[in-house]
């Protein structure tokens, strides 16, 4: 990797001089964000196809070969619709809401390592950064709900942000055992620490809790209560239309991809192959495979389970997952102490 980048840096230093680090970082960001947005668009297509298959239907197959151009058609349709802003709303906050949902999901990619040394910012507090950034999403939901100036949206926004915060807590607690075992908050070091055994094996219950928590946190079925068509006329996004509405959805899908990447890095060994003999396949592909699997599970869950009721959702978060993850932190700590793992 370093030998490959050497001539690029040399060329950049000659052309741009002192501005080169800025240009280089912008280029890195583009390289990550571009494919990310493409993946978000095609995730919607894959979701519709997979769920259709599980329902014994065929799903979108009209636009382009096997419907592959459907996301583009959807995007064009969304862009050409009119963005309505309710008359007594706060337009600025109303528009910042969707941006605050979408933005953090893209920001957090800065610290996700794709391969050794292939990471935009190799932060030593990567895990904290991800937790901090992803929590901002709750503001987007709350601001969207409040700025719409509708009772339904306000209730929906409060409810949805309560849900996101509750599950953020148990998600944070499931990451602690990983940090304890690897002894680092740096995501690259966490992956390196899984060289001998992926953390999913000793921490399997935590992986399950992590996954269910992120399903709830990204507002996916069966925890898609923010949508709430039946009781709150689609909750905090009742008043949103066209591109602002699309931004909320893009944010949701970008979040799904992000938490899949994070789950792969924290529990499934990131870029590491399952056995050392498969080392010849580039690490970024291994990460992609693991992410795809987790994303498939997201869709699979959506096709299988009915929606939770709100009080059941909160009970599960606070009275089951939180004690369970605290207990497992205790177990991990005891094991580390007794077996002298560190």
């Amino acid at each position, binding site marked *: 990797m370093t030998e490959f980048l050497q001539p690029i840096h040399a060329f950049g230093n000659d052309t741009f001089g002192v501005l080169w680090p800025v240009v280089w970082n912008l280029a890195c960001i583009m390289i990550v964000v571009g494919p990310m947005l493409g993946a978000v668009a095609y995730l919607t297509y894959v979701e519709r196809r997979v769920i259709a*298959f*599980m329902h014994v*239907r065929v799903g979108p197959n009209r636009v382009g070969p096997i419907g592959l151009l459907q996301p583009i058609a959807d995007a064009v349709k969304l862009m050409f619709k009119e963005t309505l802003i309710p008359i007594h709303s706060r337009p600025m906050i109303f528009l910042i809401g969707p941006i605050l949902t979408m933005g953090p999901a893209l920001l957090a990619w800065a610290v996700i390592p794709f391969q050794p040394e292939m990471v935009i910012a190799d932060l030593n507090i990567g895990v904290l950064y991800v937790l901090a950034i992803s929590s901002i999403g709750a503001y987007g939901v709350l601001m969207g709900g409040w700025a719409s100036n509708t009772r339904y949206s306000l209730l929906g926004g409060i409810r949805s942000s309560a849900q996101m915060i509750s599950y953020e807590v148990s998600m944070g607690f499931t990451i602690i055992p990983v940090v304890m075992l690897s002894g680092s908050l740096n995501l690259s070091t966490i992956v390196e620490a899984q060289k001998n055994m992926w953390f999913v094996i000793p921490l399997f219950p935590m992986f399950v809790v992590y996954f269910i928590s992120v399903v709830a946190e990204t507002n996916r079925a069966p925890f898609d209560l923010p949508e709430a068509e039946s009781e709150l006329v689609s909750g905090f996004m009742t008043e949103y239309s066209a591109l602002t509405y699309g931004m909320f959805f893009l944010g949701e899908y970008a979040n799904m991809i992000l938490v899949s990447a994070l789950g792969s890095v924290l529990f499934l060994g990131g870029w590491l192959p399952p056995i050392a003999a498969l080392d010849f396949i580039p690490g970024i592909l291994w990460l992609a495979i693991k992410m795809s699997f987790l994303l498939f599970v997201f869709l*699979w*869950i959506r096709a299988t389970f009915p929606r939770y009721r709100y009080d059941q959702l909160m009970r599960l978060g606070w009275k089951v997952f939180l004690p369970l993850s605290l207990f497992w932190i205790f177990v991990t700590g005891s094991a580390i102490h007794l077996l002298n793992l560190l």
Partner: protein
Amino acid sequence: MLGVKFKEILDSLFLKELVSGMAITLRYMFKPKITIQYPEERTPTSPRFRGVHVLRKYEDGEERCVACKLCEAICPAQAIYIEIDETSRAEKRLTKVYDIDLFKCIYCGLCEEACPVEAIVMGPYLDVAFENREDRFYHKDKMLTNGDKWKPVVDARLQADAKYR
């Protein structure tokens, strides 16, 4: 009693029901799909299916319709409009205009029941999509052409249903 309770706790701890539910959806993912791709594939229809109307001819190519206006009279939605051709022969009257407004038509089939010579018959197709409002009128020549085009299907349909009439 305690064993049952213990088993319940184990089941819920290992998410047994969730896993078996997900196994079912995964199994269904690979089953053949039952969706009909509509314009290309069609479901079979009964001989009594009432699609858009056709006007039939006799074997020698003569029009069946004798402009008796019974269909126009019985049509509950008043979708049929007939003008008699004044120049037609005295022993056989013909229609000059025979229009059906498909926006009004409710596909009840009473015109077919009323017709004494089986001239107007409900056809096998119901693909009625137009690009402008004028196309909703099915004129005489269009219905005669459709009658020629779908003759085998229409005849088979009449024959299959004849013994119940």
